[in-house]
C-alpha cells in the first residue's frame, strides 16, 4: 500500500487545508475595520497629493482678489459656485487647490521627518537593546535628556534662529522626535536577543552586524512599522502647529496648518476657512493612527489588549 504513504516532499492533507501564515495575515487584515478604513482614507489622501497637479481646478498660488472669500458649495449663498467647490480664501485663491497641494506638504514633511527620526531612534534603540549594559545606560540617558526638553518650544526656537524653510522644518522635527522609536526598538530588541536562534547564531560565530540584520531585524520590523506610522502622524501635527505659529512652512506655500493660521482672523465670519483644513488634518492623522493601530493588531495578534 504505497499510495497511503505520502511521498517525500508532498504536503499532507492537513498541511494543504491549514492556511499559510500569509493567508492568515490577509484574513486578519480583511477583518480589521479600523485598518481598512484608515488605509482607505490615507490612500485617498496620498492619491490626492500625488495627482494634485492634474486634478486641482486652479493654480493654488493664483490670487483673484475680485473673487475672494467665496463660500464652499454647500453654503446657501448666491456667491457659492462649482468653479470653486470649497470656496476661496482672503486672497481669492481656490481653497480646493490649496487643500490638494497642502496634502503634499503634510505628507512630505511627515514622511521625511519620520525617516530621519526612525533612523536615529532605531540605531539607538537596537544598540541599547542588543548590547545592554553600559550602551543601554548611555542610550537611556540620551533618551531621558531628549524627553526633558519641550519639543514644540525647541523646534520653534531653532527654526527662528536658523530661518524657516521646508528642509529646516523636516530636519528639526526629524532630529527631535526619535524618542519613541528608541524606546520601542530597545524593548523589542531585548525580547529578540534572548531567543534561542540569536544564541545559536552567536554560537556559530556569526558577526554582530550579521546577527543584527538577518536575525534581529526581521523580528522587530513589525514594531518598527507601527511606530513609524504613529510618528509620521506626530510629525504632521507638529508641522501644522509650527506653521500655525508662523514658524513652519512659509507663505504662500499651501500648508494646512498655515491655512488655519491665515484664516484665524476671519473665522468668526467665515468659519469654513478653518474647518476645511482642520478637518483635512484631523482625517489624515486619524487615518494614519488607525492604520498603525490596525497593523499592530494584525501583526501581533497575541498582544492584542
Amino acid at each position, binding site marked *: 500500500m504505497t499510495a497511503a504513504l505520502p511521498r517525500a516532499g508532498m504536503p499532507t492533507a492537513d498541511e494543504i487545508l491549514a492556511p499559510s501564515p500569509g493567508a492568515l495575515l490577509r484574513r486578519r487584515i480583511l477583518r480589521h475595520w479600523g485598518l481598512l478604513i484608515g488605509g482607505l482614507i490615507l490612500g485617498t489622501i496620498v492619491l490626492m497629493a500625488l495627482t494634485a497637479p492634474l486634478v486641482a481646478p486652479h493654480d493654488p498660488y493664483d490670487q483673484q482678489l475680485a473673487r475672494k472669500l467665496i463660500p464652499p458649495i454647500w453654503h446657501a449663498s448666491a456667491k457659492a459656485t462649482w468653479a470653486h467647490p470649497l470656496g476661496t480664501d482672503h486672497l481669492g485663491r481656490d481653497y480646493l487647490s490649496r487643500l490638494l497641494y497642502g496634502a503634499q506638504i503634510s505628507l512630505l514633511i511627515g514622511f521625511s521627518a519620520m525617516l530621519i527620526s526612525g533612523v536615529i531612534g532605531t540605531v539607538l534603540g537596537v544598540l541599547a537593546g542588543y548590547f545592554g549594559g553600559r550602551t543601554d545606560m548611555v542610550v537611556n540617558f540620551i533618551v531621558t*535628556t531628549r524627553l526633558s526638553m519641550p519639543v514644540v518650544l525647541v523646534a520653534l526656537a531653532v527654526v527662528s534662529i536658523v530661518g524657516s524653510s521646508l528642509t529646516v522644518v523636516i530636519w528639526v522635527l526629524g532630529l527631535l522626535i526619535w524618542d519613541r522609536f528608541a524606546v520601542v526598538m530597545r524593548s523589542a530588541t531585548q525580547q529578540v536577543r534572548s531567543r534561542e536562534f540569536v544564541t545559536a547564531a552567536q554560537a556559530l560565530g556569526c558577526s554582530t552586524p550579521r546577527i543584527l540584520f538577518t536575525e534581529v531585524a526581521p523580528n522587530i520590523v513589525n514594531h518598527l512599522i507601527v511606530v513609524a506610522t504613529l510618528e509620521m502622524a506626530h510629525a504632521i501635527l507638529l508641522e501644522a502647529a509650527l506653521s500655525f505659529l508662523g514658524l513652519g512652512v512659509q507663505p504662500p506655500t499651501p500648508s494646512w496648518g498655515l491655512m488655519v493660521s491665515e484664516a484665524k482672523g476671519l473665522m468668526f465670519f467665515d468659519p469654513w476657512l478653518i474647518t476645511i483644513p482642520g478637518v483635512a488634518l484631523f482625517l489624515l492623522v486619524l487615518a494614519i493612527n488607525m492604520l498603525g493601530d490596525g497593523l499592530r493588531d494584525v501583526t501581533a495578534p497575541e498582544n492584542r489588549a
Partner: protein
Amino acid sequence: MLAFTLKRLGVALLVALTVSVITFSMIYVSGDPAIAIAGEGARAQDIDAIRKFYGFDRPIPVQYYDWLVGALQGDFGRSYHMRQPVSDIIFSRLPVTMALGAAAIGFALLLAIPLGVLAAVRPNSFFDRFALTLAVIGQAMPTFWFALTLVLWLGVYWRLLPITGSDSWQNFVMPAIALGYYVTPAVMRLTRAGVLEVLSSDYIRTARAKGLRPPTVLFKHALRNAIIPVVSLSAVQFGFMLGGSIVIETIFQINGLGYLAWESIQRKDLPTMQAIVLVLSVIYVLLTLLADLLNAFLDPRLRVA
C-alpha cells in the same frame, strides 16, 4: 530607598546639566547668534554692538560657564526687548502657566479615570468602545484647531465663555480643555489596562470570595493599586503640557510662559528663549524624579533599578 533616591538624583542632575549645554548651544546652530539677532543684511557695526552687548565675543566655554553660574543663582541675564531681568519676567509668568497646566491635567483626569475604570469593568462593552473611539479621535485632533473650534462654538455661537484674557477662572476653562484633552487618551488607556490587570489578581478574588460588595472591591482594593502608574504618568504629562502650552496661550492670549516664549521667539530675544527652555526642562526633570521616587515609595519592587 536611600540608595535608589541618591542614584535617581544623580541621574536627574546629569540630565539637567546636559540639557543646559544643549540649551546654551541652541543659539549657535546658525553659526553666529549676533547675525541671527540682527537679521540678514544688518550693518557690520550693528552686529558688533549686539556681539558686545550679549558677550558673544568671549570664548564659548567662558560664556557657558557664566551663563550656567548665573542661571543657578536665578540670574538669566537681561531681556533686550523688555529691559528688565529675564528671571523677573519668567517668574511673574510661570504661575499663570502652572495654573493652566493644573486645570488641564485636572480636566484630563476627571474625564479619563472614570472612563478608564468603566471601560475596564465592562471590557468590550458599549462604554469600552465609546472610550476607545474617544481616545482615537482625541489623539488625531490638532490642538490649535480644536482650540479655535472651541472658541467658535463655546465662545462665539453659544456665548458661554470669554474668548481671551486671564483675569477670571472662566478664562481658563476653554484653554484647560484644549490643553488637557490631548492627555486624556493616554491616561484613560493606562487606567483601563491597570484596572483590568488588578481585577484579575488573586487578592481581588479573595476580596470577592470574602463577600465584599463589588463597589468596595473596585474602589478600595483595585483602584488604589491601579492608580499608581496613572499618578506618575500625570506628573510626566504635566511637564509635557507646560512645554505644549505655547500654542494654547497664543490662541487665548494668556499671559503665561508659553506666550512669553512665543513673544521672545518672534523678537529673537535669545536670553529669554534660553531661560524658558531651561526652566521648563528642569521642571520636567524634577517632575519625573518625583514620579519615580513616588512610585518606588509606593511599590518597593521598583527600587532595584
